[in-house]
């Protein structure tokens, strides 16, 4: 039974806005000017201090069972700096003793000492941005590391004592064949990582790569091939003991899923720290300035660096719940949905779901509504159809 007084544990996300080099496909916020590192760190600790008792989190005393240090490239920070961040977080927030503490690292920026230091600082989960085990692909993606670096980083992470390890891979790269992608997958599973994220290469608007594509500087991979790779990935990983739990995420067991990332897909509360980070609780969301300079400046005046806040209407919450829910293989929890919005899922969406169900894109069983494997390939279209005439 849920106790209404005791909120579900929340998550903390810390955005490290630095990269040695901007990858042309990436739309996360980061800068390459490392001289601002210390100023940023100081500001980040201030944000924790000021933020612990202000903002919309003050109403509910949350406890936190995840801390995710992402970016950017968190591994541009040394172990001592990461340690300071974790310690400060523990001082300001009630972080549970068994919390999942993740760091994202770039294979080109880590040393064995650094990794040991992270582990020692309390990081218990590591996610390595491998992207590919082939130099040609890494070159196209504009990564600073080589395939060799990737192999090395994984071994070093294991050696440093990380028992919960995740790898990020990208497919749908121009020139990549099905065989070539399977080779990457084979190499990845050979390390028996606990977690795998396999992302279809996406051209996010505003990125250098999208600009290059529009200007015809390269020819994107064939759409049908990429679609096939999506399904190949799921079957291959299934055969190798990895169950898909979100469109792009796979884990060896339920406990090895990214506890933190699942919060985004279950409307759980999370607090974002650092430039551009988003916070969310109930119907409210706010996000920080997407600028290190502004972030540091605002905090130096004792104010939270919030760029914008929004309070979602019921209709918007329903929309987001559908959007995030259908990304999971579990799908939308219908009981939860009905309770949360005091509504009847069937009544408001049944009519829209039916034809999609007939086409085998969406499925319902007892308490769940979820996309089929084929349905996931058309996630955007399906969500768009479902939310069109969402009666309330």
């Amino acid at each position, binding site marked *: 039974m849920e106790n209404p007084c005791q909120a579900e544990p929340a998550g903390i*996300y810390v955005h490290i806005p630095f990269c040695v080099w901007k990858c042309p496909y990436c739309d*996360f916020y980061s800068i390459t000017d490392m001289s601002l590192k210390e100023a940023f760190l100081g500001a980040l600790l201030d944000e924790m201090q000021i933020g612990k008792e202000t903002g919309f989190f003050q109403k509910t005393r949350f406890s936190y069972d995840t801390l995710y240090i992402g970016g950017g490239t968190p591994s541009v920070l040394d172990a001592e700096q990461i340690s300071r961040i974790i310690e400060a977080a523990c001082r300001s927030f009630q972080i549970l003793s068994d919390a999942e503490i993740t760091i994202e690292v770039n294979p080109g920026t880590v040393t064995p000492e650094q990794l040991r230091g992270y582990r020692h600082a309390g990081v218990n989960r590591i996610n390595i941005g491998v992207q590919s085990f082939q130099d040609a692909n890494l070159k196209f993606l504009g990564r600073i590391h080589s395939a060799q670096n990737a192999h090395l980083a994984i071994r070093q992470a294991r050696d440093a004592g990380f028992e919960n390890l995740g790898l990020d891979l990208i497919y749908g790269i121009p020139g990549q064949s099905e065989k070539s992608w399977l080779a990457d997958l084979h190499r990845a599973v050979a390390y028996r990582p606990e977690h795998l994220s396999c*992302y*279809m*290469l*996406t051209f996010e608007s505003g990125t250098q790569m999208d600009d290059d594509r529009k200007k015809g500087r390269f020819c994107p991979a064939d*759409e*049908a091939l*990429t*679609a096939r790779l*999506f399904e190949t990935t799921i079957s291959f990983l299934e055969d190798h003991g990895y169950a898909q739990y979100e*469109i*792009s995420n796979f884990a060896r067991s339920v406990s090895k899923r990214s506890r933190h*990332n699942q919060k*985004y*897909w279950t409307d759980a509360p*999370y607090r*974002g720290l650092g430039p*551009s*980070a*988003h916070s*969310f609780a109930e119907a409210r*969301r706010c*996000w920080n300035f997407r600028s290190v300079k502004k972030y540091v400046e605002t905090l130096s005046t004792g104010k939270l660096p919030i760029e914008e806040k*929004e309070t979602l209407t019921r209709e*918007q919450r329903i*929309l*987001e719940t559908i*959007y*995030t829910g259908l*990304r999971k293989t579990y799908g939308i929890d219908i009981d939860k949905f009905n309770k949360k919005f005091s509504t009847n899922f069937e009544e408001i969406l049944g009519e829209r779901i039916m*034809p999609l169900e007939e*086409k085998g*894109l969406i499925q319902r069983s007892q308490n769940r509504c979820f996309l089929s494997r084929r349905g*996931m*390939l*058309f*996630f*955007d*279209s*399906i*969500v*768009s159809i479902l*939310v*069109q005439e969402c009666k309330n």
Partner: protein
Amino acid sequence: MIPQNSFFEAGRECSSGDFELNMKNIRNFSIIAHIDHGKSTLADRLIQATDIISDRDFHDQILDSMDIERERGITIKSQTVCLPYTAKDGQTYFLNLIDTPGHVDFSYEVSRALASCEGALLLVDASQGVEAQTLANLYLALEHDLEIIPVINKIDLPSADIERVRKQIEDDLGLDSETAILASAKDGIGIEDVLEGIVNRLPPPLSGDAEAPLKALIFDSHYDPFRGTIVHLRVSQGKIKAGDVISFMSNNASYKVEEVGIFQIVRVPAKSLSAGQVGYMIAGIKTVSDTRCGDTITLKKQPCDSPMSGFKETKPVVFSSIYPVASDGYEDLVIALEKLKLNDASLIYEKDSSAALGFGFRCGFLGLLHLEVVQERLEREYDLSLILTAPSVQYEIIMNDGSSEIIDNPALYPDPTRIQTTKEPFIRAAIIIPDRYMGAVMSLCLERRGINKNYQYLTNNRLEMIFEIPLAEVVYDFYDRLKSVTQGYGSFDYDIIDYRETDLVKTDILINGERVDALSQLVHRDRSVERARLACERLRDEIPRQMFKIAIQGAIGAKIIARKTVSPFRKDVTAKCYGGDISRKRKLLEKQKKGKKRMKMVGQVMIPQAAFLSVLKTDNS
């Protein structure tokens, strides 16, 4: 003498009754020209030269008050302005410039405007020379016995060839080129010569008997939200003043005159308007439909013996249905049409409904340009997004039982097995071209099922060709094509002559097997395959890819005559979704949701407004 200055301040009543005494100081004139020869610029200069508007309030193309007129560089709604001018002879003259619309759809309006003038400036571009509309407009002016002053404009251009243009004026137009005024409206050259020319060379209005019963011609009207319909009129005999009870001779409707006056960008009230004057009348007339262009106004108690000649009731010849894209846009459309109708007497409409598009209106237009203008005004001035169905003419359908029906809407087309014969309207088209385009025009007209009845040389290289063509072929995109094959030199005018037997079919468009009633068209059998194929191609290009293959078919009854396919997405999935992505994605979905209000759902297929519009579009590019 006429007392001045304060006299022309906006809003002040004319203080003088001297008007009727000074008929010789009035000139009523139009400017006629081929498109782009500088008509609006010349009008601007004349207005500026006579100081009726401050420089601060002045803007280019001041008489073209609609955005759409300025953007397209055409005049749709004619305007009138009275210019006070003190000539070299020391006298002050009142020059009534009656602006005219510039398109064949509105040729009746042009003829009414010219009927209120004694003279016209015929503007010819110094580098382009005499062109088709110059000629067509000249004929129209000569029909009304107008005195013509040729004006060679744009003489400042490096490519100006004044001597060649003089020769054309002489040879092609048969006018005395020695009397042509040289001008550059853009640089303000020759403006005084033009004003002096108007004063000295155009005759004053015939001093009709001011004591005779009132006879005045309505040449235009517009709607003012505060005063109701403003009737633009030219008094040809008698006098009209506030308090008079007048009647319209076409329908005997009578009204009490509230105000008369003249136009000076703003309306300036006057005590009366008498024979020869051009001005306006306000008489509590609710909608412009109650006043008809070309009608005659007289006094109820003391009517004149006969109306002005040339009155015609304008009849719509092109029909199309208008639907709001958003399903909740119907009420807005009702209001917008009612308002537009206040200002556009030639627009007619009645309720219509479609399975695919919901409720809308079946509308009648004077021509295709009129249709486009109405659509643009509705969308711009009333912020509506609309879907228009393919334009159609009126067909006469004779049933097996001998009864007959007039049909302009494909939705009402009866079961073909019940039809004995179908008749379609034919026009007599007069096309004037330089003779080098004879072959091109001949093939265009033959391709449009035209029959060449006659041709004759007007001058040594200018040709008039007469064709009988089905109206349906002309409303499609004939005028654009004529212009393109004649490089803009072709002018064209037409009258409906009769109804003739035809082989009509109804083509349907099916999307994934479902008929979209709003895309049905009535076409000649010979045209059906081509039209259906074109419609399918355009839909294919405009309908966004979806999860499934979309089949677009053209059909006559159960027979498929064209087919195109929109290939499906192979994938459509956002790869990553973390904390910073959700709000952005939600906004994107919300935007899409709004955008989809501009789409129509047929079965499972979303069809954007642009797709419907593309089927209607006529250009072949």
